């Protein structure tokens, strides 16, 4: 095994059964048992088909493509919350996912309490979070709001809180799923700077984005997924022009 490889997909396919028969619940399932069982076995939706790539340590890679192309499934496989249907996924290193807005937060708890909750969920120890608490709060610029329940926060404030926790993680592989485009411009800049900082310190970053500008600025490499397959995989400067042409 090559030590410089962080993420390796080898002929990975992922398909989901279409659970339409379960939509009717237990009642529907039991009353239509033979049909339901057959349906479970047969109808499948393919999200990824025979995908292979290696991502090296320290690389910053963007996954691009239309909605439903399979980008988030890819991230789910890297985060190891999904299992591939065939092929192998190998991930070497601590993975930190950047959660969607408010994911892993509890709306009745204060910002400060949510920092602890979210930090532990994302892999930090309680001790580390207590040590870094001031720095996290400082980064978020939330001031006195930090001791208010977060249901009073605006969505921008929530994303500040969320990103501030992530900025203090110590990831080896960071997964970012389209969450950079939140918060005001000043904070967006701060996020991007932080990502650049992670990048400089050798963190492997995988991001899903639709923003061509962000990808151009942050990423070394683009993997473009179209119709559940890799359409193109190469340096940002090569893939982006083709990608832009294709969609404009």
């Amino acid at each position: 095994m090559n030590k410089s490889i962080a993420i390796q997909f080898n002929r990975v396919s992922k398909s989901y059964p279409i659970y339409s028969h379960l939509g009717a619940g237990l009642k529907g399932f039991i009353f239509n048992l033979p049909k339901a069982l057959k349906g479970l076995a047969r109808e499948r939706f393919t999200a990824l088909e025979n995908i292979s790539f290696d991502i090296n340590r320290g690389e910053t890679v963007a996954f691009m493509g239309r909605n439903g192309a399979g980008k988030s499934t890819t991230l789910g496989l890297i985060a190891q919350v999904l299992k591939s249907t065939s092929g192998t996924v190998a991930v070497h290193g601590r993975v930190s996912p950047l959660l969607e807005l408010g994911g892993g937060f509890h709306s009745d708890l204060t910002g400060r309490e949510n920092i602890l909750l979210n930090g532990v969920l994302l892999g930090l120890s309680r001790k580390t979070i207590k040590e870094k608490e001031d720095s996290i709060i400082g980064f978020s610029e939330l001031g006195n709001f930090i001791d208010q329940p977060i249901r009073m926060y605006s969505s921008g404030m929530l994303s500040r809180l969320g990103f501030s926790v992530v900025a203090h993680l110590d990831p080896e592989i960071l997964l970012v799923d389209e969450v950079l485009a939140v918060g005001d411009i000043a904070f967006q800049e701060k996020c991007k700077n932080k990502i650049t900082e992670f990048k400089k310190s050798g963190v492997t970053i995988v991001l899903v984005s639709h923003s061509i500008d962000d990808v151009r600025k942050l990423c070394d490499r683009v993997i473009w997924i179209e119709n559940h397959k890799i359409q193109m995989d190469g340096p940002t400067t090569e893939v982006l022009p083709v990608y832009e042409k294709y969609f404009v």
Partner: protein
Amino acid sequence: MNIERIKDLVIVLTQKELKARYKNMKLGYLWSLGNPLAYGLIYWLVFKYVMKVKIEGFPLFLVSALFPWQWFVNSISVSANTFVSNASLIKKVNFPRNILSLVSTGQDLIHFIAALPITFIFMLIYHKNFSPMLFIGVPLLAIIQLGYTYGLGLMISTINIFFRDAERLIGIFITFLFYLTPIVYSTDMIPENFRHLIPLNPVAPLILNWRSLFLEGTLNWNYVGITLGYAALFIITGHAIYRRLSWKFAEFL
């Protein structure tokens, strides 16, 4: 996944549950007592004065069984949503999901312990002895019930991901179970030829043991064994189902 990490997860998730439950409620503790006490009051009125049930010290009789029952019911009825309500987390972060089930019933245990003084007050009112058996019986039954509700809760929360109407079934099931369990009535009021069926009700031996512990300071060791058997059954089946299906949670939620 090391022990430290699991410990940290259990602590912060339990804190979350407790804080969320008591936020904005300065009298949170009293609120958590309100529900079982209200039931106790209404059962006392109805069964003592309308149905004329003749049981000595009826309020203590009710309270001694209602608090453990309340723990059981809370854990089981909340469990259906344990995983569903944490969907955004489960879809992104890889951690042992069964910790969520443990935390859910664990915080009900904390409430149960916090409510114990109420039972003790009733014991004082009815001049019951505080037998040394309480020191063995309370922790023993509490640990068994924790494992029991954890296993059952894990099973229900897993199934409810795939069949969202399982939740409804649980509600109906609990109504049956309440009246089939000797909570508002005593075992000697059950017709004699049905009494041997008591162990078939999975909660009856547990609830009856809590009651005899508080009322007489004794445990029925046969019932302890039966409850342990049920607990083992639930934990093993719960884990088997969970293990088989947990990797599908993220794609299903």
